[in-house]
């Protein structure tokens, strides 16, 4: 008998795909893929591209921008855009308004009406002629869009909406749903949001480093995830200066300005990437004083880094922590 190792030809090496979409790097990782994995990867990529195309605010002809233009009139949109607007409304209600997609005018006033080169690190835009003004006539009432599910029609209202964050979370959710059966374990990630299914490449979960918003290559924690989503809201990259005003992309709906938060980043682990994204943003806007109470109240697994570089965690996060930065002493 031969002593040569027998290799099962049906076992394929991991399938990994990477592409750029939604102004982020998107990655798929399928562990021990099945026979139809390539087809599923193609489907998952297609859904991400559809979300990017239909929910972008940078293209005036996108479904989202057509709905924004229609305002209080009905606009028929794609399934992805419709579901994203419904999800955004649910998130608005669930967070008692702390998540509010009606921030498009603020971002536009900040000059963020196109993809900006944040990688230049010190991005300075000229202030608009009239200065940075708050959107006039906006009253911070509960958002009440209208939905016609039969026609896939929406009425977003007079204040235009931005689906940036939640759109990315939904794209990750839908892509992950399509990829789930493609292999023994899968990872879908897009710009800080991710969904990890199965037990990872080594069978002991997916190890996810939580970036240090202060900088450096050392993470503040390493999470071990099994069938869990994770999202981070941080100002590390998308911060810039308009005239002489420092701004970032996380807008406080109550002030209609960049959130004056004493937090640098918030990471939330949950069952769904869109909800993790929503809560990471809502917790960030709420600031350090409220974050622990809010996280405990809603049973959120959250980790945050404050302006002093200190790291805090909620109780629900601890089972997911595989490693964390040491005490200061």
């Amino acid at each position, binding site marked *: 008998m031969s002593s040569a190792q027998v290799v099962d030809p049906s076992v394929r090496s991991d399938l990994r795909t990477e592409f750029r979409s939604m102004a982020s790097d998107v990655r798929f990782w399928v562990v021990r893929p099945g026979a139809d994995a390539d087809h599923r990867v193609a489907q998952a990529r297609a859904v991400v591209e559809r979300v990017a195309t239909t929910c972008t605010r940078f293209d005036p002809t996108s479904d989202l921008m057509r709905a924004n233009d229609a305002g209080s009139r009905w606009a028929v949109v794609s399934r992805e855009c419709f579901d994203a607007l419904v999800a955004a409304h649910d998130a608005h209600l669930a967070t008692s308004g702390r998540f509010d997609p009606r921030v498009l005018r603020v971002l536009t006033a900040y000059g963020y009406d196109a993809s900006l080169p944040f990688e230049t690190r010190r991005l300075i835009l000229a202030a608009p002629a009239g200065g940075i003004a708050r959107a006039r006539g906006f009253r911070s009432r509960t958002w009440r869009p209208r939905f016609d599910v039969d026609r896939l029609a929406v009425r977003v209202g007079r204040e235009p909406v931005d689906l940036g964050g939640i759109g990315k979370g939904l794209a990750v959710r839908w892509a992950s749903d399509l990829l789930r059966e493609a292999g023994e374990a899968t990872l879908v990630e897009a710009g800080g*949001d991710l969904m990890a299914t199965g037990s990872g490449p080594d069978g002991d979960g997916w190890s996810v*480093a939580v970036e240090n918003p202060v900088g450096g290559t050392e993470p503040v924690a390493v999470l071990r995830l099994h069938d869990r989503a994770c999202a981070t809201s941080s100002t590390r990259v998308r911060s810039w200066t308009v005239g002489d005003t420092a701004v970032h992309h996380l807008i406080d709906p109550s002030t209609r300005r960049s959130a004056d938060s004493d937090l640098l980043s918030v*990471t939330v682990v949950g069952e769904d990437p869109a909800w993790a994204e929503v809560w990471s943003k809502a917790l960030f806007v709420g600031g350090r004083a409220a974050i622990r109470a809010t996280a405990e109240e809603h049973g959120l697994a959250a980790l945050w880094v404050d302006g002093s570089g200190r790291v805090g965690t909620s109780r629900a996060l601890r089972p997911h922590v595989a490693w964390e930065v*040491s005490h200061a002493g």
Partner: protein
Amino acid sequence: MTDRGTRVRWTTAALVAPAAAAVFTGTTVWAADHEPASAAATTTTSTTSTAPAVAAADPAPAQPDPVIASLQAAVDANSVQVARLRRTVADLQAQAAAIAKGIPAASVRTSTSPGSSRSSARTSSTASTPKASAPRAAAPASRPAPVVRSAAPAPAPVQAPATHTTTGASGAVK
């Protein structure tokens, strides 16, 4: 000779006496302003003043003493790790016992085996509506305790383990 010697002595005395008086006065004033134990007292004060600064990051209403709270947090965090390791040991012992009985290790379901967590989460993640899949609390720890770490200044005693990916700022190029 006598007159000259007397004049020299008087001149010297006139110079030395005020200087001696000045040195004596200065020493007396300095001694009055400085207590022998003041250095130790300063150290004590600075030590106690750092403790509230740590606790102020996340005040724990149920624990008035911030030092105890901080220590308790460390105890809690380590307890969770100890419990996790005990569970792992128990699982490995179960697998070893199964192997000894001739049962394949892969068929032994343990609390940390991949299949158990996967199947339970699969059920919950099939919900399509956002509300149905809203995040829920994981298994709660024994008691709430503040956890405060430092991200920037203090290097970790042990290097972070290798990871599969990173969560962080959106748009960051990895």
